[in-house]
């Protein structure tokens, strides 16, 4: 605990003063001041906390930092910015694919994982990829459109 653990997040390496079994989520949010990943359930059920570790979506609420050490971690902040958004972020804005927006981090990051392994997903593929990401406002249809739009943009 005293020494902490080194993590590489969005290309920058930082030492964080947390115990090795600390879920990655709290370190991202509280030590690194990254807002994107959200606490939803702490049980890997809802997906609001999703980030990419080694390019693959993981549930950061139950992913200990000791497992993340030495692997590249990407959060939604690392995808793009308001000024220079990633095609997924641009597509979510274009489709106005949010209501409260609390789940949207998980949608974007899970979709980023999907598009990395399947750049031309069908509607069914997108639905399956997001099957374990919960949205309560009912923004699903727009989210599906946004992911499909991003896939088209990225294929250009």
């Amino acid at each position, binding site marked *: 605990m005293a020494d902490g653990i080194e993590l590489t997040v969005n290309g920058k390496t930082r030492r964080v003063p947390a115990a090795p079994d600390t879920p990655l989520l709290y370190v991202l949010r509280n030590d690194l001041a990254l807002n994107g990943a959200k606490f939803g359930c702490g049980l890997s059920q*809802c997906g609001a906390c999703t980030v990419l570790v080694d390019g693959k979506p993981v549930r950061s609420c139950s992913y200990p930092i000791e497992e993340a050490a030495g692997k590249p971690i990407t959060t939604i902040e690392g995808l793009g910015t308001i000024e220079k958004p990633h095609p997924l972020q641009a597509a979510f804005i274009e489709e106005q694919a949010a209501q409260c927006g609390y789940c949207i981090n998980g949608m974007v990051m899970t979709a980023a994982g999907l598009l990395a392994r399947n750049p031309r997903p069908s509607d069914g593929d997108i639905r399956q990829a997001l099957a374990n990401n919960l*949205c309560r406002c009912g923004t699903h249809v727009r989210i599906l459109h946004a992911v499909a739009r991003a896939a088209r943009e990225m294929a250009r």
Partner: protein
Amino acid sequence: MSGLVLSRRGFIQSAGALTLAFSLAPPSLAAEPAKLPGSLANNRMLDAWVRINGDGTVTISTGKVELGQGILTALEQIAADELDVDPKRITLISGDTAQTPDEGFTSGSQSIEYSGIALRYACAEVKQMLLDLAAKRMDLPHGNYAATVEDGTISFSGKSVTYWELAGAVDLHREAMAGFVPRSPQGLRHIGKSAPRVDIPAKVTGGASYVQDLRLPGMLYGRILRPPSYGAELVAFEEARVRALPGVVAVVRDGRFLGVVAEREEQAIAARDELARAAQWREPTSLPKPEDIQSYLRSLPAEDHVVSSKDGAPAAARSTLEATYTRPYTAHASIGPSCAVAQMKDGALTVWTHSQGVFPLKRDLAKALEMDVAKIRCVHAQGSGCYGHNGADDVALDAALLARAANGRPVKVQWMRDDEFGWEPFGPAMSVKLKASLDDVGKIVDWAHDVWTNTHSMRPEKEGCNLLAAWHLAQPKAPGKPGIIPQPAGGGDRNAVPLYDFPRQKVTHHFISEMPIRVSALRALGAYANIFAIESFMDELARTAKVDPVEFRMRYLNDPRASAVVQAAASHAGWQPNLPGGTGKGRGIGFAKYKNLSAYLAVVVEVEMDRASGATRLVRATAAIDAGQVINPDGLINQTEGGIIQAASWTLKEQVLFNPQHIVSRDWSRYPILTFPEVPAIDVVVLDRPSEKSLGAGEAAQGPTAAAIANAIAHATGLRLRDLPLTPERIKAAFG
């Protein structure tokens, strides 16, 4: 308009539109205060709403808050149009007890109707004051000048002056007179357009958008350990073992309220786990048996209110139908558990909260904490969508109680998933009995609606203290008495009065005070179950009368706007009248005018049934909505799509599970909601009526969607299901 003299004096040419200038005589001192529109009625000063700043910006204040419904974007559009400024100049302040108007709660689809209309009048008046002041400076004859306004620059022939130059000279600290009619639809640039939501870019890039994202210097993290059940008593507690954990700053015990404050969030969570091991509880068996809940509720004492009756001449009935429909307890089930940050410093408390009503919350916090209300400030910050009264207010008190033990440092408290599911106030279980008679030509001649329900609002309000932790303190505060929300809006009886025109009817609200399970406001209140029942029953009657369900409804709708949405939904869905059923595929319709006061909505849902599993596949939902003058069409569509999906989730999947001791559904595995593979295609048709007043729309889809699904299942299978949710198990059992 008493005390107000209007006289037309001239024309002002304004940015492509013609604005009328009026002269205003001050209201006479003896006169009654003028009745002002919307929330201006209770917040009468212009500068409570609008401030023009010398730096080229405009500050707009509203007591309504962003809940994910897009209200701030819509209010910005309104202010931009009425003031004639670019929206980029506008800063919105919302829901801050130190800065904004008190508009009560952001609830009931009323923000456009109340805050929106107040802003339209206030901004129109401020613009006129600026014009008059500008004209005076130019030595133009009072009330007889022509001017254009473009983004805050007022131009007369050859001369111009900006709002920002006039800012210091215009005195907005006076009562609104509301004498200036807001712009007509022809002159609008922003209202009626699908302006992109102001909050979405930050929400998709990790911007600080939510109270959860608030980080204050020196901030600590808190967690609460609730009792295992409503009535559990704390019989033993070993505080020392929790205090000994790393990072723990304080352990708070007050009666059966237990909380912990730690330096780091994961330490607070670990300490909460230890609190659970350190506390021993005695749990009474105090809840009804879940399988008997509806009959149990109906056995309780009830106040009966006849909320509508019509006594046309009795007619001979050929057939009489009677049916009872039920809904279970339903959770708000916000994705993000409730959260608040509180700081107690120098005897003053500041709470950052996603409450729907910062002013009522402040008053209840004062009662719970026995503090002077003047020493408390509540500031709204967004949270996860709430859809009604969830844990937002409760966690604000939790944070305040922990902040008292934090030596002036701010404390952020977020509930854990099981706190939210176990302790939020649920949407009440309800039962609705309908009885109607058809004459020999299949016409409805008699209609009776009986609804049994608890209250639909136990929000912090007036008497008592409606904050959870206040009931658990060593010196507990009593909750307020449950009450009814009167018609025409209604609470449990919301939309119990049919919009259909029947010659004879009686609608009775059986109001049950005793609440075995904690309940309060959930999106649409009683309208969800009442419309589900009425619209299901209309299909049952149509079937008996051998009339197509769309045609059957049209016979009883006298309001052309109601008929128009029913027809629009049917035609866009490709409704074929009298389509034979029982094929495993079906379609159904549902309709209501929300609250009988707000938006009109009809929806057609198409389903495909899987006989083997009993599962319902939602294929498509096609809705038509009339919300009067639409401020932001895409925002309206977004809200309607969301309402349909959420209502479909309630209808097919959701019920709070409990046993005689406690709530059992405490995570998403026990309280599943609709997922991506289950979501239908959705098509929303907006019937815009720019010359009609704007109507609240955010809850309009809930009831009609439930009925449309049940009617579609009935059409597909011949099975009429009346008990929500319509789970595969129930459908399979009905197949036999």
